């Protein structure tokens, strides 16, 4: 288990401030945020290689804030592997290990066994990360901190390493905190997603909730939400049988029914994949929002397409399959109806 409470730390002029979250034992936490958000500083402070100036770090239920790094039992892997260049691959992996047999085992699991006698200078980017992961796992830590370890790895190796890591994490009940810019990784690996910005915690929630219900418009945009509208939220008229938190949101000439926690919401967030397009209005539907518009632009990326629709004075982006574009005859200038469920309109 990793828990931080009001954590603060300096990294040069940068300051991490008042970060609080808790990751249960055996869970996989994802740390997201733009460059300079404090992701690496957070990991280093948890590992103990950077001193916390305020707050508390709790590992496995024990306060370790003042404990040196070597006594915390935490492995760390950086984006640049930082393999010790004066040592062979085998010596790197065995550096902190207590069990030679396990060194061979972990090297084999991660595909580093054929590299053991090689000098680290002769390794490719993917191989370096493989060795760095094996080195971090060789002392059998129960907590692993990963700072974008797969960012510089080719897609094929990345998929394999991710699978092996997930397998090891489940087998050994590792608690993993993983910095990544890959939202796919966040979705597939994470039990908890932690969003940092400017050294502060913006939101900590399960990945699905983070992506569906970001805490702010800035968070939504960082997380890749295609549609973020500024406007005003008001409660729906009394007497309607809507679920709690249902509100009417007006952004220019566009009105949307969405879910939010208070009327102070100033933005509506809609993910492109939640926008359903049809050439005409269909019959009765559970969706609360049906918006008439005109296709402004269609951009196809492989099997997917982004369709921009002008809804009055507001552009709405829908993410559909490339096949749907031809099936629905979506061409610039064609009329279309965009349908969105109220639950897919997040007010924040």
């Amino acid at each position, binding site marked *: 288990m990793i828990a931080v409470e009001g954590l603060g730390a300096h990294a040069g002029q940068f300051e991490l401030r008042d970060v609080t979250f808790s990751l249960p034992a055996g869970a996989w936490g994802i740390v997201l945020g733009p460059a300079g958000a404090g992701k690496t500083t957070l990991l*280093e402070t948890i*590992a*103990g*290689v950077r001193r916390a100036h305020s707050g508390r770090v709790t590992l496995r239920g024990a306060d370790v804030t003042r404990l*040196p*790094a*070597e006594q*915390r039992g*935490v*492995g*760390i892997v*950086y984006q*640049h*592997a*930082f*393999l*010790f*260049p*004066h040592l062979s691959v085998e010596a790197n992996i065995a*550096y*902190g290990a207590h069990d030679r047999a396990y060194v061979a085992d972990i090297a084999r699991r991660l595909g580093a066994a054929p590299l053991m006698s090689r000098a680290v200078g002769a390794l490719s*980017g993917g191989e*370096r990360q493989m060795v760095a992961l094996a*080195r*971090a796992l060789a*002392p059998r*830590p129960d907590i692993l901190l990963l700072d974008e370890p797969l960012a*510089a790895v080719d897609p094929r190796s990345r998929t394999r390493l991710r699978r092996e890591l997930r397998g090891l994490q489940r087998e050994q009940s590792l608690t993993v905190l993983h910095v990544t810019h890959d939202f796919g990784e966040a979705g597939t690996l994470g039990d908890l997603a932690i969003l940092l910005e400017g050294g502060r915690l913006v939101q900590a929630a399960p990945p699905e909730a983070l992506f569906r219900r970001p805490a702010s418009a800035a968070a939504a945009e960082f997380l890749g939400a295609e549609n973020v509208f500024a406007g005003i939220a008001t409660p729906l008229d009394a007497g309607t049988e809507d679920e709690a938190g249902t509100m009417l949101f007006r952004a220019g000439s566009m009105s949307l029914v969405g879910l939010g926690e208070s009327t102070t919401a100033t933005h509506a967030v809609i993910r492109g994949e939640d926008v359903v397009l049809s050439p005409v209005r269909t019959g009765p539907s559970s969706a609360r929002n049906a918006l008439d518009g005109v296709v402004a632009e269609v951009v196809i990326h492989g099997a997917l397409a982004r369709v921009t629709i002008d809804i009055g004075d507001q552009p709405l982006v829908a993410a559909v399959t490339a096949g749907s574009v031809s099936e629905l005859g979506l061409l610039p200038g064609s009329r279309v109806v965009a349908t969105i469920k109220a639950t897919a309109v997040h007010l924040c």
Partner: protein
Amino acid sequence: MTTHAPVRVSHRAATAGVVAGSLLLLLLLALPIATLVLRSGLAGLGQLGVDAELRGALWLTAQTATLATLITVVLGTPLAYLLARDKLPAAPIVGALLDLPLLLPHPVAGMALLLAFGRASPAGVALAAFGLAVVGSRTGIVLAMLFVAAPLYVSAAREAIARVDPRYESVARTLGDSSVRAAWRVTRPLAGRGLLAAAVVMWARSVSEFGAIVILTYNPKVASVLSYDRFTGEGLDAALPVAAVLVILALVPLLVLRTLRASAVSGEPAR
């Protein structure tokens, strides 16, 4: 085309000026050394076989310079590490303290050492109790060499250590090393060539020291003092072979340094 012509001419003139200026400076530096070696180099090497005083002075110079360098490596490397990793709260003061001996005229450094460690000084009295005399002794030579050359070592060692990314140590610490052990097992080997180069610079500077040594210890004579002694006592012709041998000896650490720098690789290449 015509608008570009003056620009091209002035560019050529500037290039010619830079080349001429550089050549002039190189000539000023090389001419005295080349003249000395060409005139007396062979004579100096020949004299090594017959001049026991010269051999003794060179041996003494090498011994004391080596001892001063070893003491500085042992005491100065941890200091350089603390400076490189910003772990000293009073780093600017320490930095200034380290720069000061480099800025002092070397006879002034000798006088300062004489005042601080002379027979009448408290430190001199304390050292005498252990049978160590600074004035007129090998200890004095080592102390003078250390005073003028140790800052060079610390400064170069600090740079060599600073070039090693501290995250190598971070990784080593998460693998179970204490901060001292991580610095020893990881940073020391990675900064090794830089530390060796720093030691070579210090050794060479110690060998060439004259001003501070001559104030503290005229006898026994190191090579630089012997050269001066022969110049004042017997004239230029007598001093030249000794001087030429010193120049030839200075080439050895210079070549070592160039070799180290040419093959220096610190840390992991950026990816």
